[in-house]
């Protein structure tokens, strides 16, 4: 282009340039002002918010897990304790060649391959500068072996960790329960702050029910950390508070006697202190060893326990459902007396069967030829079915339901264990709602001898007999007596007793009849009649497992063991001043009097005539 032309316009050019410089400068001032406004917004308005975030960034809270509370029996024997165990742990970051180190350790301590695999899995979840366990429960010998070579293994060390241990094993497993590693589901519902750093949680039993008390309060360290979460400095420490120690009402000696008394039978025995409702015995057989659950039970072991036909994991005392059989008869008799449907002296002829008017079906008595003329005393003592068919019919199912409901049949006792079964106490209402059918009179009859729809748990049965012994004052069974915290002791508050209004005379009569079951000339539990300084009031029961067809005879030897009747026995003693109430169920035991009653007798005897202390201690 023409250069002259350009020179001519120099002044105009200069003017435009100057105006553009001024424009640019104003723009720059405005933009810098904009930056300052934004900075002021962050540093004045947002300061508090960002300062908090900065502090959160910097200060990390490291949990200090509390020591779990110990569980004792009523006489201070440890049922669940914390045992220090040696654990070989590695800090991967401090190890130069991890594979080589693992290989050497494996050779030294003969570690199985699966432990190495487990370690590798867990290592990936942990930070490289935290410890990851390789081997737990090291023996003293292994610890010594490692101690010799320890200088050659930087980043590997033996730590002492407290691990839950149950010294009585299967004996009290259904009461105490066990702890196990916290699973993902539990993690969601737990208070996160309290359980950071805690690996174990009560899974069943008292361990689960009293989890919050046993767990204690977590402490924490405020650590200054960098972005890799590596600790730079400890700012402050709040010590953890150990979990509360819990004393149970259970007597482990008595528990052992009961457990042993059940012998080869599967079944359950429950004994209750009538005055307090404290559960003295809560045995379910077979039990299981809870200790493997703590260290992590293998899939194979667990499957074996679950698939076993004996169902060792099943808490029979708490959840087992059985027909009460003849053990219901004293309660039914009392109902008849209280409602005035009959009187204690009322007599009835028992021909060995009972027939409803205009119905062919024969409701049989267990005694084929019948008991002849019996009054209520004899009917209870000899367990005459026909007498109670007749009484049940006279009462009607609704009155039976109403009366037995007061004793806690068909509903949870509210014991401090989770998973309790409801049981079943039928009524017309129940059948309409659940079966959509009308109630048949025949069903009233068999309810009268504790068969049919009715189902009870051993605990319910024990509670009912304790309530009877307590003269209508309802007993609330519970397992925990005291919770001892670091600074105070909580005794368990008992809910105010409900009282079933009963006429003393009726009660005395029934108790007398029950005493005769054991001590009378023709009592079904005559085996227990020994001169031991007290008298037992009891009632035998035999619960039918399957229905025998009409005109067929029940032949014990001819049928499969699994089809045999359950043997039941309920009792309390001393009869004149009741202290202990017991319910025993021996599955497929056959006869209450010969199988279940002696078991109950052993428990009662051990309780009322204790041998020297500690004799049964393990």
């Amino acid at each position, binding site marked *: 282009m023409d250069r002259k032309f350009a020179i001519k316009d120099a002044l105009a*050019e200069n003017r435009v*340039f100057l105006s553009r410089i001024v424009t640019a400068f104003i723009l720059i001032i405005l933009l*810098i002002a904009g*930056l300052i406004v934004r*900075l002021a917004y962050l*540093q004045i308005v*947002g*300061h508090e918010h960002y300062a908090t975030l900065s502090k959160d960034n910097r200060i990390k809270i490291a949990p200090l897990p509390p020591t779990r509370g110990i569980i004792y029996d009523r006489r201070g024997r440890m049922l669940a304790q914390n045992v220090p165990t040696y654990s070989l742990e590695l800090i991967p970051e401090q190890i130069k060649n991890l594979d080589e180190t693992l290989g050497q350790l494996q050779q030294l301590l003969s570690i199985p391959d699966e432990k190495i695999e487990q370690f590798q899995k867990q290592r990936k979840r942990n930070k490289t500068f935290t410890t990851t366990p390789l081997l737990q429960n090291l023996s003293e010998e292994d610890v010594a072996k490692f101690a010799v070579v320890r200088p050659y293994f930087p980043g590997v060390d033996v730590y002492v960790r407290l691990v839950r241990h149950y010294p009585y094993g299967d004996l009290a497993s259904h009461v105490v329960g066990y702890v196990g590693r916290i699973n993902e589901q539990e993690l969601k519902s737990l208070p996160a702050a309290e359980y950071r750093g805690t690996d174990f949680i009560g899974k069943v039993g008292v361990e689960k029910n009293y989890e919050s008390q046993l767990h204690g309060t977590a402490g924490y360290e405020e650590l200054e950390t960098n972005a890799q979460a590596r600790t730079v400095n400890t700012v402050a420490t709040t010590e953890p508070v150990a979990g509360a120690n819990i004393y149970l009402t259970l007597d482990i000696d008595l528990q052992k006697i009961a457990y042993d008394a059940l012998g080869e039978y599967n079944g359950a025995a429950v004994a209750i202190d009538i005055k307090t409702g404290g559960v003295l015995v809560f045995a379910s057989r077979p039990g299981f060893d809870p200790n493997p659950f703590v260290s992590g039970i293998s899939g194979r072991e667990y499957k074996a326990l679950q698939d076993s036909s004996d169902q060792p994991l099943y808490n029979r005392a708490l959840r087992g459902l059985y027909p009460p059989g003849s053990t219901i008869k004293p309660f039914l008799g009392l109902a008849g007396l209280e409602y005035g449907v009959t009187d204690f002296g009322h007599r009835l002829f028992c021909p060995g069967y009972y027939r409803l008017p205009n119905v062919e079906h024969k409701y049989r008595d267990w005694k084929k030829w019948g008991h002849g003329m019996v009054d209520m005393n004899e009917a209870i003592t000899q367990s005459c079915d026909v007498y109670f068919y007749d009484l049940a019919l006279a009462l009607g199912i609704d009155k039976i339901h109403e009366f037995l409901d007061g004793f806690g049949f068909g509903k949870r006792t509210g014991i401090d264990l989770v998973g309790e079964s409801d049981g079943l106490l039928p009524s017309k209402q129940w059948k309409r709602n659940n079966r959509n059918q009308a109630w048949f009179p025949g069903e009233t009859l068999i309810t009268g001898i504790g068969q049919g729809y009715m189902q009870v748990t051993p605990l319910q049965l024990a509670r009912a007999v304790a309530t009877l012994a307590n003269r209508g004052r309802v007993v609330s069974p519970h397992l925990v007596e005291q919770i001892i915290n670091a600074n105070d002791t909580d005794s368990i508050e008992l809910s105010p007793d409900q009282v079933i209004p009963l006429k003393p005379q009726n009660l005395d009569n029934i108790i007398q009849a029950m005493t005769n079951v054991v001590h009378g000339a023709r009592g079904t539990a005559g085996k227990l009649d020994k001169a031991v300084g007290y008298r037992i009031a009891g009632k035998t029961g035999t619960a039918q497992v399957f229905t025998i067809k009409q005109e067929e005879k029940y032949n014990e030897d001819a049928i499969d063991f699994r089809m045999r009747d359950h043997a039941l026995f309920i009792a309390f003693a001393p009869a004149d001043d009741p202290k202990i109430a017991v319910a025993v169920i021996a599955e497929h035991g056959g006869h209450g009097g010969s199988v279940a009653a002696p078991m109950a007798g052993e428990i009662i005897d051990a309780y009322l005539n204790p041998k020297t202390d500690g004799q049964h201690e393990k």
Partner: protein
Amino acid sequence: MKNEMRQENFQSPSLIGNVLRKLHFDIPLLLGLLLICTLSFVILYSAGGQEIPLLIRHATRMGLALLLMLVLAQVNPRRFQSFSVLLFSICVLLLLAVMVMGQIGKGAQRWLDLGVFRFQPSEITKISAPMMIAWYLSEHPLPPSAKHVSIAVGLLIVPVLLIAKQPDLGTALLVASSGAAVLFFAGLSWWLMLGAVALLASLTPLLWHFMREYQRNRVLTFINPEADPMGAGYHIIQSKIAIGSGGINGKGWLGSTQAELDFLPESSTDFIFAVYAEEFGLFGCVGLLLLYLLVISRCFYIAVQAQDTYSRLLAGSLAFTFFVYVFVNIGMVIGVLPVVGVPLPMVSYGGTSMVTLMSGFGILMSIHTHRKLLPV
């Protein structure tokens, strides 16, 4: 008016001042730059984890850059003018070379290995592009006609696209803005500017289409950093925490916990302003911005005082580009602009950008101190 100016120059009372002028130093600019450089050591000591070797490396680069600045100040601006086309052509060729045989550095092709040392041709382009545009426009009457604007834009777009393809969005942006600044100072019509803005806005979807995944992420992160607090948004969130927690007065020197404990990434390079803001608070930030403004003002003064069109346009552009540097970096650190890799000029650790910046200031000094020798 020009006579007065000359007189003023000749009548300087101080002997040292005279010596320095003979050495072609511009005292106010040099003082401003030295102040910022000193501050950079203070911040870098804290942000870099109080490492002395880091400071020594920083000092070495800064010394070399200052030396280059002073050397360039000796060169007559006419030489820059006559050298413009050649330098620009070399830059474009080198950028092409980088594209063809460049090595992979940080996942992007930016470096050219010359055996002895490696350098980024895109950095020189930051200077050579405005030189080229200033030369071209100064050869023609101003304000530029539509034809000349088109040709200038055409010249500019070649290196910008080459750099953007590396991909180095930050540098491409700076090169583009330095060229645009030349056009602006040359008196580009406001209508054309409006048209260009409208065109750019309409091209945004197209641009989005051509962006790389990480570039898109940066834009998305900029719009909503909390969406990905552990990934792409981490920089901005941690940076805002650092700045906000500094408050009005700051946590004091060496008091930055965000950088100290490694929560703030790139705390000694691109995000060094966050450390500074955390330690020195709002007062410190305003102070630093004013210091930058001081330097920019001096550069604008130099541009206004320049005696020929080429020097004027180049000086204005270099001054404005320096501001763009500051604004883009701080804007990104405080979360008002997307994260592009632009360091805080003179403060961030890193050699390349400092050399380029100091070269620019050397040219500015040259323009200012050679005035009297120019024939009118």
